[in-house]
C-alpha cells in the first residue's frame, strides 16, 4: 500500500492518492507509515523538479496533496514522534512586495527536505526579519522579491540584520523574478538561488547536510 501511495503522489494522481490514504487509515495503518510514504514521494517530486521534468504546477499539486493528506491523518499526527530537522530557515517576501508563490514553493521544498521553516509571509519589514531571527534562531534566511523595488528592501534587510549584530549568525540567500547574482552583490547577501531547488541546495550546504 505504501509503495502504491508513494507512486500515486509522485505521479500526480491526486484522487488515487487520497483514496489510498483513506483506505490505509481505515485499515489501521500507522500514521508514521503514511507520512513516510508522503516524504518519499515529495523527495521524488523534488528530484523530478530538479531534473526538469516537473515544474510549478506539479509542486503546487504536491503541496495540495500534502495538505489534504495531513488533514486526513491530523488526529493521529500527535502520536508521531518529532523527526529531527536539518536546520532552521526564516523565509519572507521583503518590504513593499506582496508576491508569494515562488517563496511558498521554496518554503514547501525546504520543509519536505527536512528543514524547520518559519515563513513570515509578505511585505516583511527589516525589523520583523531581525525579530524573527532573534526568536527563531535560524541558520539560514531567505529573502524573496519579485519586483525591482525589492532590491533596496533586500539591501536594507541585510543591513538591519548586520546592525542587530546577527549577520555572522546567519547565511542569507536571495531569490525572485528579477533577482540575479548582480543584485545579490548589491544587497550584501551570501548567495542567489534561481529556483526552489537551488534554495534547498544552498540551505543544505550551509547546515552541512548532504
Amino acid at each position, binding site marked *: 500500500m505504501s509503495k502504491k501511495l508513494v507512486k500515486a503522489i509522485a505521479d500526480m494522481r491526486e484522487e488515487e492518492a487520497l483514496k489510498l490514504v483513506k483506505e490505509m487509515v481505515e485499515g489501521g495503518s500507522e500514521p508514521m507509515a503514511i507520512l513516510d510514504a508522503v516524504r518519499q514521494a515529495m523527495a521524488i517530486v523534488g528530484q523530478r523538479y530538479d531534473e526538469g521534468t516537473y*515544474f510549478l*504546477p506539479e509542486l*503546487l499539486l504536491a503541496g495540495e496533496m500534502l495538505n489534504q493528506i495531513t488533514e486526513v491523518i491530523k488526529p493521529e499526527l500527535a502520536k508521531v514522534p518529532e523527526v529531527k530537522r536539518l536546520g532552521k530557515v526564516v523565509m519572507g517576501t521583503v518590504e513593499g512586495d*506582496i508576491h508569494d508563490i515562488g517563496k511558498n514553493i521554496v518554503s514547501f521544498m525546504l520543509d519536505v527536505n527536512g528543514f524547520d521553516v518559519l515563513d513570515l509571509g509578505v511585505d516583511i519589514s527589516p525589523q520583523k526579519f531581525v525579530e524573527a531571527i532573534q526568536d527563531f534562531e535560524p541558520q539560514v534566511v531567505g529573502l524573496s522579491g519579485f519586483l*525591482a*523595488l525589492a532590491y533596496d528592501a533586500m539591501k536594507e534587510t541585510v543591513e538591519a540584520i548586520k546592525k542587530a549584530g546577527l549577520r555572522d549568525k546567519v547565511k542569507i540567500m536571495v531569490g525572485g523574478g*528579477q533577482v*540575479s547574482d*548582480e*543584485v545579490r552583490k548589491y544587497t550584501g547577501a551570501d548567495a542567489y538561488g534561481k529556483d526552489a531547488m537551488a534554495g534547498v541546495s544552498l540551505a543544505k550546504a550551509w547546515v552541512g547536510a548532504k
Partner: protein
Amino acid sequence: MEKKWEEMSSDEKQEALFQRWISPEGVKFASPEAEKLYKERTTRFRDAIQLKKLPDRVPVFLIPSFAPAYYSGLTPHDVMYDPDKIKPAWKKFYTDFQPDAHGGCYVPTPIKFLEIVDFKLYKWPGHGVSPETTYQCIEGEYMKADEYDAFIHDPLYFFYYTWPSRVFGALEPLATVPHLSGLTEMYGVAGSFVPYGLPPVQAAYKTLLEAGNEALKWWGVVSSFDKEMPELGFPAYQAFATKAPFDVIGDTLRGTKGIMLDMYRQPDKLLQAMEALTPMFIQLGVGAAKQAGNPLIFVPLHKGADGFLSDEQFKTFYWPTLKKVIMGLVDEGVVPFVWAEGGYNSRLEVIRDLPKGKTIWLFDLTDMAKAKEALDGIACVGGNMPMDLLTVGTPQDARDHAKRLIDTCAKGGGYILANGAFFDEVRWENLKAIVDTVKEYGVYR
C-alpha cells in the same frame, strides 16, 4: 478603385494599417523636424517588422512602468491621485531620452476612480502599499473552480456581471442582475426590470455613472497625450493590448494556483473556456488597431514562461489559443507585439510556427542569441536590457551590453533593442547610455 477591407489579403491589410500609421491624418506636427522624425521612426519600425528590407538602424524602445513619474521627482501616488501631473512627467521622459516610440501614459490609474468602485483586485500606493511604490495584484480565485460551465456557456455575462461583482466592492449587487432573456414578450418585460428598481442595484448603477465620469476625466489626459506625442515626432508602439486566453484565466480569474490545479483536475473545461475567450480577445486587438490607425497590438505573456509549465503543458494548454489569437490578429493586418515575460528558452521551437514578417517577440530573460537564431527570418525579435543592469549597473555596463545585443541580434534586420521588463526607478544615465549607443552603433551600413 481602392479595395474593400473584407476583400484584402492579410498582407494588404497590414500594409494599409502601416500606411495609416506612417502617414496619419490630422496630425499637426510641431515642426518639420518632428514630422521627419515621426516618418523615419515609423518606417524604421515597419521595416524591422516586415523583414522585407533593412531598416536604416536598429529601433530603440524604452518601455517604462512608473519610471517617468520617478524621473520627474514624483511618486506613483502623486500621479495616480492627480492625473494632471501625468502628462508633463511622461512627456519629459520621452523628450529627454528620445527613444523611437512612446507607449502611452495609461499606467497611472486614477485613485479617485479606484475608490469609487472600491477595487479589490490590487493594492495601490497609499492603499495597501507605500505611496512610493507601484500597484500590485492580489492573487486569488476570483472565478471559482466549479464555475467553468457557467463561464463557458456565457462568458459575456461573466465579464459584465459576475466578475465585476467580485472585484469591485461597490458593484457587488450586479451579481443579482439576471439574464435578460425573459424580456422578449409583454409578459416578461416589467418583471425583467424589477432588479433595477431595487436600491442595492440602483446604487451599483449610480457607481457606474460616477466611475465613468472619473474615468472620462482621466481619459482626457491619456488621449491628449496620445494626440500630442506624434506631433512631437513620437509614434506609439501600441494601439492597445490583448492577452493569451490562458493568462486571462490564470492571472485574475482562477489565479496561478487555480489554473495550474485545473490543468490536472479539469483539463477539458479549461480548454473549452480558453476557446470561448479566443474570439473576444482577437476582436479586442483588431478593433483597437483599426480605431487607432496603428497596427501594433501588445500581447504580454505571463504564465507560459520557463518553469511555469512543462513543454507538454505549454503545447497543450498555453500555445493553441495564444496562436489562434495571434493569427486572428495577423489575418486582419494587425501586428502582435508579443512580450514573452520571464524566460522563453524552452519555448523557442514552438513559437517558430508563425508566418514571416507578421509578429514582434520581445524577450525578457531569454537567451537573445538563441532567440535570434530561432526566429531569424520569421519574426522581429526584441530585447533585452535587463532590470538588474538598469538598476545597479553602470553606464559603461549599459553601453557594453547594448553593443553586445546589437552584435548578436541586429544582423539582417528584424531586431528592436528594448528593456525586457517594465521598469520603475533605474539609474537614468543608463537609459541615456543605451539610447545613445543604439543610435551610434546600431546603424545598418
